[in-house]
């Protein structure tokens, strides 16, 4: 039934989150019927997890004196929520030229993904007021945000992946209002989905990935709307959620 075939390079692109959302869904269908390739994909994903487990501790080790221009760098993880949000907001543009050394189009797309990451960093640590309207009023939440964005929104349900909806809020974007939906898993790990209206309904893009200060963002354009899913989780886990979101929005 598959209209494929799937090339070896595509299996790697799938692992690395470099396929278009539509192709990601097709590759998943292919893998469901090809256990041997599915086993390889699982092994490659596991390699990435093992690499992080083995080498991520190096990120937080105190720096030896000879790397001394960097006395403060070791503190950053602890300051992330406080200083991180401020630094983000001040637009320390370092490093967030994500996919490219620069081209205008990508600069435009990465700048809104960056706003999504900032919004994630600002609101996801909130204990008492993480959202404006809670999931208990979901219908009202969706109706309200749809009205403000001027287009019908859908809120994905991610219960199968262990994430429940906390609620949502309205935020200012660079081109008008945007919506943020927040999800949380059993351990309190939060993801946010940032939704904005695209300036032109220019079709679909691939998933793009960006990461800064521990926050990963998958973002993509889907005709009228742009989506950015942010979280402080491993890239393959975030990709799994992004794929599920895409699929629910494009049944």
């Amino acid at each position, binding site marked *: 039934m598959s209209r494929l075939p799937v090339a070896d390079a595509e299996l*790697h692109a799938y692992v690395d989150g470099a396929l278009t959302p539509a192709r990601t869904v097709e590759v998943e269908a292919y893998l469901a019927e090809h256990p041997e390739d599915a086993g390889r994909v699982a092994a490659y994903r596991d*390699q990435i997890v093992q690499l992080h487990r083995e*080498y991520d501790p190096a990120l937080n080790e105190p*720096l030896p004196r000879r*790397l001394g*221009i960097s006395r403060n760098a070791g503190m950053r993880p602890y300051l992330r929520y406080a200083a991180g949000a401020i630094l983000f907001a001040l637009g320390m543009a370092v490093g967030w030229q994500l996919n490219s*050394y620069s081209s205008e189009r990508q600069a435009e797309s990465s700048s809104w993904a960056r706003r999504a990451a900032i919004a994630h960093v600002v609101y996801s640590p909130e204990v008492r007021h993480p959202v404006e309207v809670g999931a208990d009023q979901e219908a009202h939440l969706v109706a309200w945000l749809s009205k403000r964005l001027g287009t019908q929104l859908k809120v994905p349900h991610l219960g199968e992946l262990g994430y429940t909806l906390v609620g949502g809020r309205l935020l200012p974007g660079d081109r008008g209002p945007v919506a943020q939906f927040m999800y949380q898993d059993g351990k309190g790990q939060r993801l946010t989905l940032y939704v904005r209206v695209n300036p032109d309904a220019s079709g679909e893009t691939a998933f793009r990935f960006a990461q800064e200060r521990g926050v990963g963002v998958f973002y993509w354009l889907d005709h009228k709307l742009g989506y950015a899913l942010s979280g402080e989780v491993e890239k393959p886990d975030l990709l799994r959620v992004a794929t599920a979101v895409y699929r629910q929005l494009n049944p």
Partner: protein
Amino acid sequence: MSDHESLVTQHIPRLRRYARALTGDRNAADDLVQDTLERALSRFHLWRAGSDLRAWLFTIMHNVYVNQTRSRMRHLVEALDEPSADALQAREPDWAELRDIDAALARLPAEQRAVLLLVGLEQFTYEEAARMLDIPLGTVMSRLSRGRERLRQFLAGDSGAATLKVVK
């Protein structure tokens, strides 16, 4: 601390992580980071403001690493007669080591290791990795594919078995 020092400083933890994985050795990794920082700061005027500083730093680190590896190999080859120099290239691991990611990584050819780490650990795109290593995109893909497949075999304890002698 000058402005460009503080910009560069933010990237030190990621540079250290990559160097650790690349060299498999704590001290060698910090040496590599130090050399990279020195070179980056002395050439900071060559960085194009607004472009990706992290990518630029990783490119420098890669070049420093390649140069050092090259000169180290040359010294070794000069110091040794040929058969032992050959032996250096192929380190025979013992079985207990094989399933350890660090040891398995060390057995990959350096160019496959670099691609695997830039993409898998540092999460650069294929295009970024190609630019950093100054190789075509297709070469990135083939190194990634071969590297991951070999690593999978090592970690599964499937030695690529014909070549590995089991010593009783």
